[in-house]
């Protein structure tokens, strides 16, 4: 597929009237390959919630999630030439893999540009110390860990560790599903999970 031709057409052709009966994903992909922008918009509307839900497993800020959604669909657009459909949920599975990769790349970028915003303040440190040392009696210890604090701690993990923990524990995927999305073997996923948990414990251990 000549992407250059599609891109110039993409910017110029106005949005067409939507059809009453929505075609299948594979048909829409074929239409996009032929330069139909409306077909791509339909794909976007159909699947953006799924992509957004997955992005929310990795990031909780709306602007980050929207960036992920845009990057994922943009990557999907340029990779449509390599899409091989044929099955009912081929497109969503393919798009999910792209989204996971996009989230992973974003984690790596975030790791490279760690800023002072990821430093913990005194309250956070005190809360963690109480939770790790206490016996379940104090109020501080029973207070919930905020999403912000949890995110700061998880940011200290390697991107691969964060990825596997997020897919298994936050997105509640199975090992097999995680292996399929990441392209890793099942044994590698298990090994990575074990290492990731050890790494997270090591991060917390500093507050004991």
């Amino acid at each position, binding site marked *: 597929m000549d*992407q*250059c031709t*599609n*891109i110039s057409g*993409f*910017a110029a052709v106005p949005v067409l009237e939507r059809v009453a009966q929505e075609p299948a994903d594979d048909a829409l992909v074929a239409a996009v390959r032929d330069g139909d922008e409306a077909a791509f*918009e339909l794909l*976007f*509307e159909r699947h*953006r*919630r799924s992509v*957004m*839900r997955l992005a*929310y*497993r990795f990031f*909780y800020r*709306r602007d980050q*999630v*929207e960036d992920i*959604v*845009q*990057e994922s*669909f*943009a990557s999907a*657009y*340029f990779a449509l030439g390599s899409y091989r459909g044929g099955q009912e949920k081929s497109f969503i599975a393919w798009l999910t893999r792209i989204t996971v990769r996009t989230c992973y790349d974003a984690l790596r970028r975030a790791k490279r540009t760690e800023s002072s915003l990821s430093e913990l303040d005194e309250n956070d440190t005190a809360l*963690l110390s109480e*939770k*790790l*040392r206490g016996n379940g009696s104090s109020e501080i210890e029973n207070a*919930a*860990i*905020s*999403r912000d*604090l*949890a*995110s700061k*701690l*998880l940011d200290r993990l390697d991107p691969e560790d964060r990825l596997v*923990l*997020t897919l298994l*524990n*936050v997105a509640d995927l199975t090992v097999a599903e995680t292996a399929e999305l990441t392209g890793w073997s099942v044994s590698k996923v298990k090994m990575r999970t074990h290492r990731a*948990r050890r790494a*997270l*414990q090591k991060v*917390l*251990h500093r507050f*004991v």
Partner: protein
Amino acid sequence: MLGKTKLTRDERLDEVCEELLLAVKVSEDEMAATANSADSNDLYEGLRLKIADLGARSARRTSAYERLRGFYTTMVESPRALALATAAAILFLLAASVVVLLPAPSSPEQSTGTQAIAPASPPPNAIRAESGESTESIKPASVSAHRISHRRRGLDSRSAEVATDFLPLTFVDDSRAQQSGHVVRVQVLRSALIAFGVPMNMERAGELITADVVVGEDGLARAIRFVQ
């Protein structure tokens, strides 16, 4: 008892890990609220712009690739052009290697280690580290980063001193060799020898030894030698 405490701490670590992973979960309601927001049109519009931008960049990269490919094809199809390009590349590499591998000129004084720096005249045990007590100028005093050797100098008729070669404190290339400076005789702890890779008796680490420090015009210490 110790074993039970350790198990409890590990269990607590596990619990807090689970709590962390739960804490980052965004509720379905939140996700639905974002997904159903009226800004989805803006989201799609942003996507269109991103695709157009990425496509333009890809087109530029493609044309650069095509230009390189054209150049390569010309080289392959025209043996003369290939030969000229190869000859130019070889000449460039030769010139670069000559510049890189050219040995640094060494002054006669440095090779003997005896006259590059005029020795400080006062006896060793009477002098502390005072910058005012500089002695003769050095000429020339280019200190190379490559000379870190330790050898005994022959006895000089003027003094019974034995000194190491001057060891560089700053690494400057010969083109910035200082033209003048001063030598200051100081006393330093014997343990300073370690920093310069000179063997020493650890039992005597606290003793003082004599050293001559070359101080440049800018006030920076350039080199040091240890004197016995």
